[in-house]
């Protein structure tokens, strides 16, 4: 376990390069009015961390309430608001932008050999929309919150609650456009700004994953937008579109809502899968097995992902025929994800594996996402779904894929590219500890919830039958461990900004174009437009390049 692939420059003589994208210009306006994709990525990183902690605190409140069977920590209405805001903030203000807006923004031009994204001003606009939406969401919370659940199901949200549905809807609407513009930017950049020699099949799989997620962002999010508009009209004017007394159908809302929200889960996970492709290759010193399969499976997930949304609606009143069709299609959509897991596993086979922090998070992802994904198949089968839906089984399922999967992938990516973004290494031992603590905490928190779900504990309930208490206490205990696991990176990553070891260009000996330039990069990324003359994950090319490099002697 003491072997490592990290090669750092001699710390006594190494310095952060004097000219880089951080030092290029000074002053707050140079950051707030920047067009530099790397600066925008940093802005996003700071803001999503802020929202993560708000969402996380709300999660803490949920788990505290669920320590006891009675609704004694807070009133049930308040509890409804807490879990609603937890969902909205975590989904729209953390998970959806997490990897794309931070790592994607930072890395895609670098990985493609471009100087920036295609539309830098739109990129900045995207961040401002995100911030406006986020501030509006906080305002909503401060002025009484919303208690419909993040799914805004009608007719509850249109006719029966008097909480801040409209302002929350507006916040989500604006955040949606932030997401659309990010995705649009990525698609244009990937199509039009690859450097010479960078064919589609030489791009890192990280880019393929973001391409697929961007297609979903561009095509799916507008439907959410119009759905929110219709809910707002229903709530204010009473147009009747979702109102049974006027002949409307509440289930139409669910069709339109889930048409986005199912692809949304793929928007959330695909970029994380992109990170995993990169880390698993680097820390096995091997090209990703089945590059083409992984690339195409990303696009397949995006395409199939548009055809399965009603598996969130099996018990809601859709026709049996629709249940049949959507259940069948849901089985199909699991296949590309499984292909990726298999390919990553085969990448590990006969690789030289080391266990630095990004790889620990990667292993965590592989195991936990597999469990989460498999339980998704149980839920996709309509027969079992009838019993498991709206129970804690669902809660456990999506937390396994989103927290055990996506959040771990996000942390893997942050740690992996931290040296590139900041020029400094994070402290390895404490970060490995944090990864292990997170993994343990996660399993203690969410595994009992699978059992609770199969035993029949409903979700979104502040009070529950006393026989469920033991498992709930386990879950809350795990949550406190998980909290520590998430707090540690904030502390040591911030610490590393000043005291971390100088990383140099390529501490991981990785193959991507982003690792062949200085850390942190120049504002213009590449002094000379690179020419891509080798395949992706070509470690032989890297070896030859290193042989030719001259290192300072004495």
């Amino acid at each position, binding site marked *: 376990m003491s072997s490592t692939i990290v090669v750092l420059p001699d710390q006594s003589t190494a310095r952060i390069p004097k000219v880089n994208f951080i030092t290029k210009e000074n002053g707050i306006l140079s950051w707030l009015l920047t067009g530099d994709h790397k600066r925008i990525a940093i802005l996003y990183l700071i803001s999503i961390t802020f929202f993560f902690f708000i969402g996380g605190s709300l999660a803490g409140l949920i788990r505290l309430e669920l320590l006891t069977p009675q609704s004694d920590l807070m009133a049930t209405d308040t509890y409804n608001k807490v879990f609603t805001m937890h969902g909205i903030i975590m989904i729209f203000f953390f998970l959806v932008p997490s990897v794309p807006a931070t790592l994607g923004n930072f890395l895609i031009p670098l990985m493609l050999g471009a100087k920036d994204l295609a539309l830098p001003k739109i990129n900045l606009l995207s961040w401002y929309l995100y911030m406006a939406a986020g501030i509006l969401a906080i305002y909503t919370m401060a002025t009484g919150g919303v208690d419909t659940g993040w799914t805004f199901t009608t007719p509850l949200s249109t006719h029966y609650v008097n909480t801040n549905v409209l302002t929350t809807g507006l916040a989500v609407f604006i955040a949606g456009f932030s997401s659309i513009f990010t995705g649009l930017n990525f698609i244009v950049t990937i*199509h039009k700004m690859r450097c010479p020699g960078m064919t589609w099949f030489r791009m890192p799989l990280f880019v393929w994953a973001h391409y697929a997620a961007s*297609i979903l962002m561009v*095509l799916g999010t507008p*439907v959410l937008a119009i759905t929110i508009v219709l809910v707002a009209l229903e709530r204010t004017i009473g147009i009747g579109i979702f109102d049974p007394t006027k002949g409307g159908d509440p*289930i*139409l809302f669910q*069709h*339109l809502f889930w*048409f986005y929200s199912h692809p949304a889960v793929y928007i959330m996970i695909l970029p994380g899968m992109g990170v995993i492709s990169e880390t698993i290759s680097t820390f096995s010193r091997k090209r990703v097995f089945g590059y083409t399969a992984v690339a195409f499976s990303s696009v397949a997930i995006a395409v199939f992902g*548009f*055809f399965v*949304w*009603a598996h969130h609606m099996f018990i809601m009143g*859709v*026709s*049996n*025929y*629709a249940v049949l*069709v959507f259940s069948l299609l849901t089985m199909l959509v699991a296949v590309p994800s499984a292909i990726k897991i298999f390919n990553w596993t085969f990448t590990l086979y006969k690789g030289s594996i080391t266990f630095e922090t990004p790889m620990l998070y990667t292993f965590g992802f592989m195991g936990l996402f597999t469990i989460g994904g498999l339980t998704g198949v149980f839920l996709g089968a309509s027969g079992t779904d009838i019993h498991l839906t709206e129970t804690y089984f669902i809660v456990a399922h999506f937390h396994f894929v989103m927290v055990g999967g996506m959040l771990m992938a996000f942390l893997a990516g942050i740690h992996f590219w931290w040296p590139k973004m900041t020029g400094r290494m994070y402290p390895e031992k404490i970060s490995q500890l944090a990864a292990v603590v997170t993994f343990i905490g996660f399993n203690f928190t969410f595994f009992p919830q699978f059992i609770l779900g199969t035993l029949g504990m409903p979700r979104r309930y502040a009070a529950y039958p006393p026989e469920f208490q033991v498992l709930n206490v386990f879950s809350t205990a795990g949550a406190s461990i998980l909290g520590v696991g998430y707090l540690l990176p904030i502390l040591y990553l911030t610490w590393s900004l000043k005291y971390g070891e100088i990383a140099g260009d390529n501490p991981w000996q990785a193959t991507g174009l982003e690792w062949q330039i200085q850390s942190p990069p120049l504002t213009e990324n590449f002094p000379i437009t690179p020419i891509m003359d080798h395949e992706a994950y070509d470690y032989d090319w890297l070896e030859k390049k290193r042989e030719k490099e001259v290192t300072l002697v004495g």
Partner: protein
Amino acid sequence: MTDQHEMEESQHHVVSPMIYIIIGGSLLVLTGLTVFASFLELGIFNPIVALAIACVKAVLVVLFFMHVKYSSKLTKLTVFCGLFTFIALIGMTLMDYFSRAWGRW
């Protein structure tokens, strides 16, 4: 190389005003036709005829006014993707609504 050639072509291919006049005129004629058809009693074909004429009009606008006929493969693919997703939304949702009356099977 073909795509670069295509792209330059679409940059420089200037559609002649005569085409616009012909297409514009066709659109106006089709509008008249669709209004006329709506006054006829065609039963189930009323909506079919109306939508068919609307689709023809839309295709003319897309191909000629929006230059898609002279554009790169990528542009054509993009238009197709938009249509495809739109049809998926409508088709799959309507599939639920139409089959609700099919009973308890």
